[in-house]
């Protein structure tokens, strides 16, 4: 019996960094080192420009559309050299980005709301193929009702599909996180697609100050994209073959391992970003006034900005409240969250999403947070969740005050009143 032996043929040389257009270089030189007020959509587009993406796949849906409008203008102005594929739907949009990235092109796509879910088939396929497509989402309520407003449900629907999934709370964070996510996802130790999510309108359409770096700084931070097994005639490989049932478990285990193996790289790339650009982000959990907190809000996304303000006011009233913001929802930072919430007596999870009929009969995040905290050593905090900001509604300071009240009551009573509160509809 002959033995099948294979070894990598001599492969393509390391990829060059893609050349920018002369106008692009001039344009970036002109803005480097400045602070520009722009909304989250623009910030995402600028990140793509700095990352010198090769292929952009677009399909219109509010509110993320503005990202693609900005990119289309960059291309029209000759500032960015990229193929701009006006797909015939989000499924095609994701497929085209997948195809491009499979060949070794840096592919950028995005969507919102039902657009995200229309492409649902693709998420598992792309991550399972280990193709680091970058997707920028400005989130939006799923239908029904017809609603343009922000809700995290769209992106959270994909949370178990093997993508790196994180929320950005400001335009600056959108810009930074897009670059960080690319650096992580494209790292050969990781090779996973990334979703950088911003809250629709609250972040995507409200301007904030964005510090813009030089092209050289970004190039130094973000190496050229090189897929080790690209669809390249110089070193042929096959992607995505069928498997035999007994081969399923080891391959799925490999996917699980990939998510875990991403964790140290996320830390590393976040730190490297801080070192390079002076903006130091938490790896996974932003801890705000948690050191001595008795109660804490767990939150992600743009509402954390309001939450911070509310906490500062509550602190003035002597209430020992803090905030833990999830920078990434996948991979879920169980360990970091436990560390951040050690000593806290009650935790409220702000759900800007729908988890209909789920374990808490509220949202999607609380079960994840609860599971993480369940394995905490010592005394575990009480956990409840707050349904707030649905359908694009704001979560005003008063609602955070109300939540703090409920948490304080839980601490007093030694038990939570209920697993999920519909904020604004309860006493």
């Amino acid at each position, binding site marked *: 019996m002959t033995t099948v032996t294979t070894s990598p043929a001599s492969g393509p040389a390391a990829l060059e960094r893609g050349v920018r257009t002369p106008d692009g270089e001039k344009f970036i030189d002109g803005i480097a080192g400045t602070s520009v007020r722009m909304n989250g959509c623009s910030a995402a587009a600028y990140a793509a420009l700095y990352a010198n993406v090769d292929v952009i796949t677009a399909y219109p849906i509010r509110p993320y559309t503005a990202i693609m409008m900005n990119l289309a203008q960059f291309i029209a102005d000759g500032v960015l*050299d990229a193929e701009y594929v006006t797909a015939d739907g989000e499924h095609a949009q994701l497929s085209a980005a997948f195809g*491009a990235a499979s060949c070794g092109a840096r592919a950028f796509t995005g969507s919102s709301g039902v657009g995200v879910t229309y492409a649902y088939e693709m998420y598992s396929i792309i991550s399972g193929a280990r193709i680091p497509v970058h997707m920028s989402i400005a989130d939006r309520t799923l239908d029904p009702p017809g609603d343009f407003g922000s809700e995290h449900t769209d992106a959270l629907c994909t949370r178990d599909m093997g993508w790196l999934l994180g929320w950005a709370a400001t335009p600056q964070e959108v810009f930074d996180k897009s670059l960080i996510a690319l650096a992580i996802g494209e790292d050969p130790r990781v090779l996973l697609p990334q979703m950088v999510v911003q809250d629709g309108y609250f972040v995507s359409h409200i301007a904030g100050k964005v510090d813009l770096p030089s092209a050289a700084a970004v190039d130094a931070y973000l190496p050229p994209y090189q897929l080790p097994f690209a669809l390249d005639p110089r070193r042929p490989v096959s992607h995505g073959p*069928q498997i035999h049932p007994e081969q399923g478990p080891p391959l799925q285990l490999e996917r699980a391992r990939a998510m875990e193996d991403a964790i140290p790289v996320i830390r590393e790339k976040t730190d490297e970003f801080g070192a390079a650009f002076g903006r130091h982000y938490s790896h996974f959990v932003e801890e705000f006034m948690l050191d001595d907190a008795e109660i804490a809000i767990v939150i992600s996304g743009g509402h954390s900005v309001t939450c911070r303000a509310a906490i500062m006011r509550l602190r003035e009233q002597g209430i020992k409240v803090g905030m833990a913001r999830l920078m990434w929802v996948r991979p879920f930072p169980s360990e970091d969250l436990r560390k951040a919430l050690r000593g806290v007596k009650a935790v409220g999870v702000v759900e800007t999403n729908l988890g209909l009929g789920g374990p808490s009969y509220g949202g999607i995040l609380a079960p994840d947070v609860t599971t993480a905290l369940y394995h905490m050593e010592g005394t575990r905090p009480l956990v409840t969740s707050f349904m707030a900001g649905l359908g694009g509604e704001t979560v005003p300071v008063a609602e955070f005050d109300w939540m703090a009240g409920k948490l304080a009551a839980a601490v007093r009573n030694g038990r939570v009143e209920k697993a999920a509160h519909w904020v604004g509809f309860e006493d």
Partner: protein
Amino acid sequence: MAHEVVRQHLPLFDEDGRSAAVDGDAGRDLHYLPDFPEEDPYQAGHRTCAGCGPAIEYRWVLKAAGQDTVMAGPTGCMYVANSTYLCTPYTVPWAHTPIASGGSFTSGMAAGYEAMIRKGRHPGPYPNIVVMAGDGSAADIGLGSISGALYRNHDALYICYDNECYANTGIQVSPTTPYAGMTTFTPFGKAVPEGKTLPPKNLARMMAEGHPNCYVATTTVGYSVDLMNKTRKGLNHQGAAFLHCYTPCQKGWVYQTSMTIELGRRVVEAGLFPVWEYDPEERKYHYFHPPVQRPVTDYLAMQGRFGHMLPEHVASMQMAANRNWEDIGMDVPDELRELEDPERHKRLADEQYSMPLNRGVGA
């Protein structure tokens, strides 16, 4: 500065002889084929059924395209049968795509190579980019995706290998399943004696009419030189090209494994699959006029999927074939016109037809 995107040009094969699907009786009587490339980027060891029509087509397409090719294959029988269990028959880069993503994934590959070459990230030349989608993928679930790609005019060749059913899942009806074709979703019975009641979707015509820059052609596995030349023309065409290939499915159509190529000729000679080319610049169709015109029964009777047809079904099939003959500018001989009359037919199972030379049942 942007780098030039250099494109390949593949020379065409000599079109003398039977396998070329060219008009006219003149010329040399070659059954001797031209020298095709030695390389077979579609290699042995795939688990397609014996006598698989799509496998023959895959082999021809990749032989014509050569090694500097990148290929995508949406879900379908040729995904499952070819790439089974971590072994694939492709010596060229190949990727599976979801069944609806044939066009979109491929347009991504094309866009990726355009950008990478232009930006100096790939030395070029621009590879041949080929996607082979089944009829389910191309005419049904992925129609929009392929249409989008053709419309956007990405430089790639989009092939529908048409075995006229969803074969992988156990023979279900697809839009290209012929009228009266029996599938597990269109069984025949007392209430529905013909099985499938709808005529097939005219996929290639739709692609030609609707996509302003697209080279479109149809061909079958009956004509190797034609198929390979159309592959090369499609690849040489700068922009999108769509090739609709008739590829018999032994399992789904119930015929002797050895008859795959014969069916590829007979379907053309029966007027049921016109072979043509559409030149987007001239906006003209160039039709192949087969040297033989047969009654549809010569084709239908070779296949079990039509075995239940009643006289009126056969007559209406002949009517459809006759309209096809007229469409491609050929006279309908009186004897074929007369066969539009159900009175002239028996049940298909009892019809007389011209049996091809039979050298035996295989596999």
